[in-house]
């Protein structure tokens, strides 16, 4: 219980720090959102509009502390306000149209690459010194070192533009009926394939190598040797004895991977014109769209902290040694 409360306290502290940073950072940027807005129009908008925009956005020069408390209050009460760059659309609306796509795509890819990478890592560690062990880490490492956006561009150009195998843009076909039907689902998968591959290749190597190295360590542990000696079957030895323990350190990485999902993948979304949060976040930042930035950072911070918290707790469940007391990392 004490451990739990400790973690909760820590969680709240981090949250507060993140929110404060979140308040300070965008305001440190030179210019103001109204001025940044002008960029969208490249001079098509009269400078009168600037004054109008400033009025619309309610940009005040009130005492910073008052602004801060207002900000905290509205963040905590869920009044996240209206986006500047999409004025007067609600921040929540913007997030709700892009976040699910990001979560869907990146979430699934992350889970797949974790599952795949872990499995491959286990197997090549078991057959260490083998051909697969020699090749797979290097090949995936190379793929991971390719800039994702570059790979994405090449894929869009060849597989999408030249060959027409996959759609070049968007998260689903524009002619399909949106709703629970096979066509829609198929269309989503079809459109998600190339981005998914890029994201997958960008991350899978870490999982493979991480798991392989952990496995190597556990495979040398006395309890694994002991289990082998006492005659447990091979699969049980690999999965129940070695892999299970090797998995534990991977949990922390998983937590970070999962929490970073929510920030999206701007470069990849941009190349595939995928409807994701990364683009919104980046454009919010360039447009100094405080309400949107703040809300997104808040969601990101909360998610990340909560996931970390859950993983911490989960760690306790999975590893009986830390069930009582003690930090996990």
């Amino acid at each position, binding site marked *: 219980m004490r451990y739990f409360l400790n973690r909760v306290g820590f969680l709240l502290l981090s949250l507060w720090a993140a929110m404060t940073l979140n308040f300070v950072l965008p305001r440190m*940027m*030179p*210019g*103001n*959102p109204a*001025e*940044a*807005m*002008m*960029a*969208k129009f*490249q*001079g*098509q*908008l*009269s*400078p*009168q*509009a*600037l*004054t*109008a*925009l400033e*009025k*619309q956005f309610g940009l005040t020069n009130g005492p910073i502390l008052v602004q801060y408390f207002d900000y905290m209050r509205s963040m905590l009460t869920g009044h996240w306000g*209206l*986006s500047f*760059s*999409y*004025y*007067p*659309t*609600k921040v929540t*609306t*913007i997030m709700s*149209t*892009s976040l699910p796509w990001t979560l869907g795509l990146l979430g699934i890819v992350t889970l797949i690459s974790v599952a795949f990478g872990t499995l491959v890592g286990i197997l090549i560690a078991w057959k260490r010194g083998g051909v697969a062990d020699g090749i797979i880490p290097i090949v995936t490492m190379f793929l991971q070192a390719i800039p994702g956006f570059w790979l994405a*561009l090449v894929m*869009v150009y060849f597989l*999408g*533009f030249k060959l027409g195998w996959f759609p*070049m*843009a*968007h*998260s*689903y076909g*524009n002619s399909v009926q*949106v709703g629970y039907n096979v066509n829609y689902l198929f269309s989503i998968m079809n459109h998600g394939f190339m981005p998914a591959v890029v994201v997958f290749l960008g991350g899978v190597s870490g999982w493979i190598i991480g798991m392989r190295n952990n496995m190597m360590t556990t495979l040398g542990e006395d309890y694994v040797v002991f289990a082998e000696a006492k005659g447990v079957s091979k699969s049980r030895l690999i999965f129940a004895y070695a892999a299970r323990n090797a998995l534990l350190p991977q949990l922390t990485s998983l937590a970070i991977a999962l929490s970073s999902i929510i920030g999206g993948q701007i470069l990849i*979304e*941009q*190349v*595939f*014109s995928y*409807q994701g949060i990364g*683009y*919104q976040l980046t*454009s919010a930042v*360039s*447009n*100094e769209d405080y309400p949107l930035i703040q809300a997104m950072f808040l969601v990101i911070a909360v998610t990340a902290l909560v996931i970390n918290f859950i993983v911490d707790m989960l760690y306790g469940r999975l590893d009986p040694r830390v069930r009582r007391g003690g930090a996990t990392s």
Partner: protein
Amino acid sequence: AGLTASAATAGQPIAIQTGPNGNFQDNFNPYSSTADPGTDGLIYETLFYFDNISGKTFDVLGNSFKFSHGNKVVTVNLHPNVKWSDGTPFTAQDVVFSFDQLKKYPAADANGVWTQLQSVKAVGKNQVVFTFKAPNGPFAEQYVLGGTYIVPQHIWKSLGDPTKVSVTKPVGTGPYELSSFSPQLYKLTANPSYYRGVSKVPEVDFPAYSSNASADLALAKGDLQWTGIDIPNIQQTFVKADPAHNHYWFPPSNVVQLYTNLKDPLLSQKAVREAMSLAIDRNKLSAEGETGYELPAVPTSLVMPNNKAWLDPKLPKQYNSFSYNSTAAEKILTQAGFKKDSKGIMAKGGKELSFTLDVVAGWSDWDEDALLIKQELSQIGIGVNVNQMQFGAYYNAIAPAKPAKPNYQLAISWTNTGPTPYTLYYNMLDPNGNFNVPQFNDPSVTGWLNDFARTANPARQRMDIFKIQSYFAQNLPAIPLLFGATWYEYNDANYTGWPTQKNPWINPAPYTYQAAAIVLEHLKPVK
């Protein structure tokens, strides 16, 4: 909004891309500067449209207008039989209401019309009388008649502050109605009861793209029919894909200037600006920085050929185009008393001709231009330090809006243009101008500008412009570099009637909204 199913199947839709913009948000509010493309022009309309490329005036909701009382009053006759797309008749009251909204909610008044307007009154159902505080013809045309979108009173009167609502079911008078929306695509269908006749293009699609590269591919693939994006190497990447139908035209629509801060003791010296101008090879900027899409500007800062009619026929030859001569440039500096110092930089009285040049990071053509300028100016001993900034910071530095500003030395930026050169000159050179980046103030120029605004006599207006252009060419309050292009690519496989270089009847960019609606009205299906 009523659907015209039969029309939708009759002709092919046109897919438009006005520029990469990520996901769309469901907002068709004409008071919002971030409303989705098509809101203005296609759904809501202005009274008239004054084109900055052809210089022509197009009737929209208005049928005719007349200046009176020494240009202080404009009387507009409205098009009869106009209906809102929900069937309610459109009346002069709607116009008055739309303007009253701007007065009541200054945040909505993006053009500041009420800084000039005295009153807006309806006379009967079809006439509106605008009274101005002072005569200002150009302002009345560009912003009041041509820049204010009219909304239905019966709907908006209950919406409160118009800047704070998201409009998802727009009701307008325009040729199109919203038929479906999703963040990655929305569709407009032709208004079946449009007062100027139902558009021959039954459906207009707006798909979302997040980057130029992504839109370029879609365009080349034929997924888009009308775009306004800067495509590099366009012959190879776009035209070649379908030479018979893929076309582009990049007409000039403004002037890209090298702005010099005239509050700077060195830059305020004419010799310095003159030398700079002479030392810049505009052909090189055009060819390398702009891949030939934007041509060298002229010393008068008129947008050519759009402003051909306003060019003083007696203007000395040397002011018709810039020449490039770095030796002459260096000589000008030497004559003005500058000498190269130990660092090879021209200096006088210990003050070096060394400046920072602000450009927007990521506006790659300007960034490239800036680098070329840096190279060239360095040859005559002027040091330039290129400063690539995020737009917000950049705009903040050059914007003349606030007293403490601007805060820059050199900057590359655009000009605001309108149907006549007045807009460009006024905005740049009048102390009250909207885009007086150089901080220019000369009573004689201000006088000519005021005269232009007040008079209704076209000949006198021409004389005013003649005086200003020759003043500009002689004094270089800013250094014109290139003509800023309007981006326009289209595919004429399904429709004809597009504006072309041969027939430049209107600004062809899909992002010039009222113009876009007029273009769509003029398109005809290919037989």
